[in-house]
């Protein structure tokens, strides 16, 4: 016991040196706390994203393959029954599936905003058939919760969200344009399948603060009402299934199959191919999107980690040197104690416990300060990295790719980008890790000095002085 009280007294007797040791230790602890909290949070977020985006399989048509087929004059199956896509979701490799599909539509009773022909436009296709000019877009989705803009840019202002089959919600602008109110029925026709008629009851009207056109170049060659977001008519995916729509022809599908483990991708693909998915479809995880979202986090993690290693190494060297110098300075004191009959081991315990006590005090302060500064530092690092990541991203590539009569909206990262903030908190495991690192460091550095000093015989130490 007196060893510890002596150690405490010694801390006070060498204030200057101990303050210096404390400052270095504090720097080490704070940077370790910051690094570990950031790394931990980043790892957690990456894990979450891995479970979501990283395990989200899209089944989509491969336009390059289809174009080649057209050039080759092949007529392989391009369309498969919609019910097959639903059947894929029964796979044992999945934990969850979301469906959304957009139908380019036309109506002679519901006029689209920006429609120059007021619903009178027609187009003659290559095979001689006549097609109505698409002016509207029927957006169907398996769960209204998944609609990206609701709750942020869009808000139901009248009525409610759709629920049952053949219920729909439309924008205030579209409603006003056609003098529609909640309870009215609208009739729309598939632009590419003119015999498909949807008769939908408007159950809700929403305010819409999204950009009308996602990209300004869309309107460069004339108005394109079907791409004006005010012209979306939103309904449940079941509405589409319940219609006589048999295949995915004329649909912009966006089906997401969530693997229960990201490694099941290959097995899942084998299974759906066996169920008849043609090779004109890609089965893939959006790796680019996954990396774009997790990239900034990984960057921060590695930057923080490098920083921590540098601080730890430099800190350990400094502490080791200081401990060595301190012990040389204290040689005489050790000699006296040894002469008084204090054993080597007890001298060592005394010196090590001094180091550990400093470390313990620094731990308390460091954990507090570290957890307080971790969040602002992480936010600072993130904003830089996210900006970097977004600059690399091609703004046009992200959305509204119009090809082969099909519309591709988004790459699945909506809702992830930007990861401008991660919530940090100091978990028990981190605290434990830091305690081990700090006490280990303190013990390690003091042991260097202790080993040197206790080698000496007390008589030799005392004699050197005289």
């Amino acid at each position, binding site marked *: 016991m*007196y060893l510890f009280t*002596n150690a405490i*007294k010694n801390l006070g*007797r*060498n204030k200057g040196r101990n303050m210096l040791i404390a400052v270095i230790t504090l720097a080490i602890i704070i940077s370790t706390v910051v690094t570990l909290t950031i790394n931990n949070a980043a790892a957690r977020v990456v894990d979450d994203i891995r479970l979501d985006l990283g395990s989200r399989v899209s089944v989509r048509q491969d336009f390059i393959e289809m174009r080649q087929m057209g050039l080759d004059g092949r007529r392989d199956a391009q369309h498969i029954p919609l019910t097959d896509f639903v059947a894929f979701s029964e796979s044992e490799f999945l934990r969850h599936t979301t469906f959304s599909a957009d139908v380019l539509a036309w109506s002679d009773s519901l006029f689209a905003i920006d429609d120059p022909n007021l619903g009178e436009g027609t187009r003659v296709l290559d095979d001689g058939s006549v097609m109505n000019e698409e002016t509207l877009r029927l957006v169907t989705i398996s769960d209204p919760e998944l609609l990206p803009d609701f709750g942020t840019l869009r808000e139901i202002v009248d009525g409610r969200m759709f629920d049952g089959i053949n219920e729909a919600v439309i924008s205030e602008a579209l409603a006003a344009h056609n003098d529609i109110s909640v309870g009215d029925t609208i009739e729309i026709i598939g632009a590419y399948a003119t015999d498909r008629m949807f008769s939908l009851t408007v159950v809700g009207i929403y305010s819409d603060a999204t950009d009308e056109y996602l990209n300004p170049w869309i309107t460069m060659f004339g108005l394109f009402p079907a791409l004006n977001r005010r012209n979306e008519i939103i309904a449940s995916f079941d509405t589409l299934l319940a219609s006589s729509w048999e295949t995915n022809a004329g649909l912009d599908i966006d089906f997401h199959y969530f693997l229960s483990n990201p490694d099941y991708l290959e097995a899942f693909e084998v299974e759906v191919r066996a169920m008849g998915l043609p090779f004109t479809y890609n089965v893939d995880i959006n790796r680019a999107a996954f990396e774009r979202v997790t990239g900034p986090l990984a960057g921060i993690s590695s930057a923080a980690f490098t920083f921590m290693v540098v601080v730890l190494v430099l800190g350990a060297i400094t502490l080791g040197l200081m401990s060595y110098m301190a012990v040389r300075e204290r040689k*005489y*004191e050790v*000699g*006296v*104690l*040894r*002469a*008084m*009959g*204090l*054993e*080597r081991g007890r001298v060592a315990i005394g010196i090590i416990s001094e180091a550990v006590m400093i470390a313990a005090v620094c731990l308390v302060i460091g954990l507090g300060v570290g957890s307080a500064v971790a969040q602002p530092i992480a936010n600072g690092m993130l904003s830089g990295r996210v900006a970097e990541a977004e600059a690399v991203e091609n703004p046009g590539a992200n959305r509204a790719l119009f090809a082969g009569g099909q519309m591709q909206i988004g790459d699945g990262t909506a809702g992830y980008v930007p990861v401008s903030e991660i919530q940090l908190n100091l978990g028990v495991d981190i605290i434990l890790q830091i305690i081990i690192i700090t006490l280990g460091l303190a013990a390690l550095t003091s042991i260097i000095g202790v080993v040197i000093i206790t080698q000496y*015989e*007390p*008589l030799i130490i*005392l004699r050197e*002085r*005289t």
Partner: protein
Amino acid sequence: MKCLELMDVSYRYEGSKDYVLKKISASFEAGKVYAIVGESGAGKSTLLSLLSGLDSCKEGTILYNGKNLQEIDRDEYRSKNVGVIFQNYNLLLNSTAVYNITLSMKISGDMASKEQAYALLKNVGIDRETTDRKILKLSGGEQQRVGIARALAHNPDVIIADEPTGNLDEKTEAEILEIFTHLAQEDGKCVIIVTHSDNVSSVGDVVYRIAGGKISTIG
């Protein structure tokens, strides 16, 4: 009763050819004061470091209460059985006088009481005000007295002193010698004092002289 016994002890410092002590034999009994005299460089301090267990002799044997000092735990011997007053005091400079005393008590495993420490310091002429000052701020004479008090703090059987009164005036020297003789006669301690002073050697029950590496009795 023989407390310490030297049997054919020879000693030379590491790296030196010359023996400082050459096959010396002597014995020290409890209840007596021994004075060791000799010229400077004769080997008095060397002998004391062997007797106090700070150094070990490789040639010859030193027995403490019949046990070979080579074989017993010399840390324990120093902390419990022997009290050493060093020529240059060897106190903890950054600690107070009283702390030096209580720490010695604690190392020996005794219950340490500040009151006891104050009393000890008072006996060697250190007043209450001085006891709470750091050793660094004490005069040589005061440090010497604290050194004496520390040597007695853990109530050792053997008290070994190297020129203990070198920095003291005659009046204090007389008081200290009084303490030493009291310790031997009343408390049955074995007191061994290296000295130049005739005053000191005069209180010795036995006076040894070291010269030419040999030890001899005077008187």
